[in-house]
């Protein structure tokens, strides 16, 4: 992991208009990310509340103790996609790609989104992950989540008898 500090400007427009306000997000490893205030408050309820509590954005540095630099970079990249598109289609696609390619990263991004209260992005990502479960059998889900079946054979039969009417 790089220890050099990086600058990522979220949203292309922010470069063209330098008067736009920015704040600094600090990842757990000390890396700093400069982000556009509008772009980040558009996504994160926690930062929106923080700015209103502090009464402004001047020289504001927000330490995110639970989020590592690569995860924060990925999250900001996805926010960027989300801010640039009016509908959710593009960002849903990106989340899907990330889930298939780097599930580990996706789970961390999800945790980070939950931590900074990026509600709509979090809900969208959860939906993408939930879709993964649709159509899976009980055995597949157990294998997938590394869960052991802790029911006895009789209990399984009882559960089946109890709600077989509700599905095929």
């Amino acid at each position, binding site marked *: 992991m790089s220890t050099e500090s990086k600058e990522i400007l979220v949203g292309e427009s922010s470069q063209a208009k330098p008067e736009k306000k920015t704040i600094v997000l600090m990842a757990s490893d000390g890396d700093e990310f400069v982000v556009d205030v509008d772009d980040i408050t558009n996504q994160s309820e926690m930062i929106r509340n923080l700015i209103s509590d502090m009464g402004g954005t001047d020289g504001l540095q927000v330490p995110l103790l639970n989020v590592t630099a690569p995860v924060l970079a990925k999250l900001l990249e996805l926010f960027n996609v989300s801010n640039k598109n009016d509908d959710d289609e593009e960002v849903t696609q990106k989340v899907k790609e990330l889930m298939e390619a780097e599930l580990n990263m996706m*789970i961390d991004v999800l945790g980070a989104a939950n931590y900074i209260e990026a509600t709509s992005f979090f809900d969208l990502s959860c939906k993408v992950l939930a879709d993964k479960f649709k159509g899976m059998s009980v055995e597949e889900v157990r294998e997938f989540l590394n869960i052991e079946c802790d029911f006895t054979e009789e209990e399984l039969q009882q559960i089946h008898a109890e709600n077989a009417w509700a599905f095929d």
Partner: protein
Amino acid sequence: MMLRAREQRRENDRNKEKEVVMQPSIWGRLPDELLERIIALLPLRTILALRPTCRRFSCLLSSPAFLSLLHAHNSLAFLLLSHPQFSHRCLPLYDPAADGWRSVPLPPSSTSGSASPSSLLLLSAASGLLLFALGRSSLLVANLLTNASKVLPLPTYSAAPSSAALVSLPSRSNSTHGYKIFLPCASDDDVFVYDSASVAWTRFPGFEPVLGRRNPHQGGAFFDGSLYFTTPEPFSTVGFDLRNGAWDVGVAPPMPEDLAFVRLVGGCSGSGEDHLYLVGGVGRDGISRSLKLWELVGRKEERKGRAWEEIGRLPEMMCRKFMSVCYHNYSHVNCLWHEGLVCICCTTWPEVLFFKVSRGTWHWLPRCPMLQEKWSCGFRWFSFVPDLFALV
């Protein structure tokens, strides 16, 4: 060619398996809290199907924290068929999503104190709750999804109830549903209303034109906080306010002319708005030549502005079939609302005629394959929309 395609598919399946095998340890990293958030986004049908995964999954649906994450939308809705010759242990259920029939086990019917199970007769259904007559002296309210049920002793000891209306009432403070039961009393002119919030029966005066012997098959259509009934000829609409027990004869505009029979249906649209529909056989001298559907339009506050607006007419060929299956004896006809459909049923015929309100189209639901050929009457239908938040 076929063989190669199959080989290819097998190869793909094998790759898929590998992928699944490689990922579990990573998915296992997902914190419980996040996993529950994700599961809560699945359709109820899928959550139920995943109950056998492990104890934790199985208990989710009884965890208040998890229930609060669930979205209000519901993916389950069925039609239940009751018939006197079905066993008291299960009923056939039609699943429109799968266009198939299944059997739903009924709650245990043995009352405390008696060892032998009492007879169980389905009387009414509303928002996931089913109301049964249990033997001669009790009612049973059951939520089949949560396996919860409650026995209510009848407020008077007379004959076993043959009709009662169950009405679901959303709670003001949270997402749960309470209910009320409207119970006409056969022996005298009173009605009883049970309120699940106060856990008590209240007695109100009856209304002879509606509840009298000349006017059978009155379940009551729920609309705008009241149950709506029709009187015998000359037909008119009467409302019973469930909050104060008042009967209101001026609650709806006069009915269209030349009706041979009328039924009211209370329905709720997808956006949560209440509607009241009128199903009427049109024709003179008590013989229906056609069948039409009206909707009550206009605001409750402006009674004069209210009117019955025609929204559908049964095509002639279907109408001929319907009139012949009920032998022009309209006392066999009963109507119900089910998820955007006005269902017109006949106790003497195992098929259901229904009108899709959004599209304005008419259809028949075919006969249930679980029925035996010789069973010819006594068919009663109920709309069953399982709901975790319907409290017994």
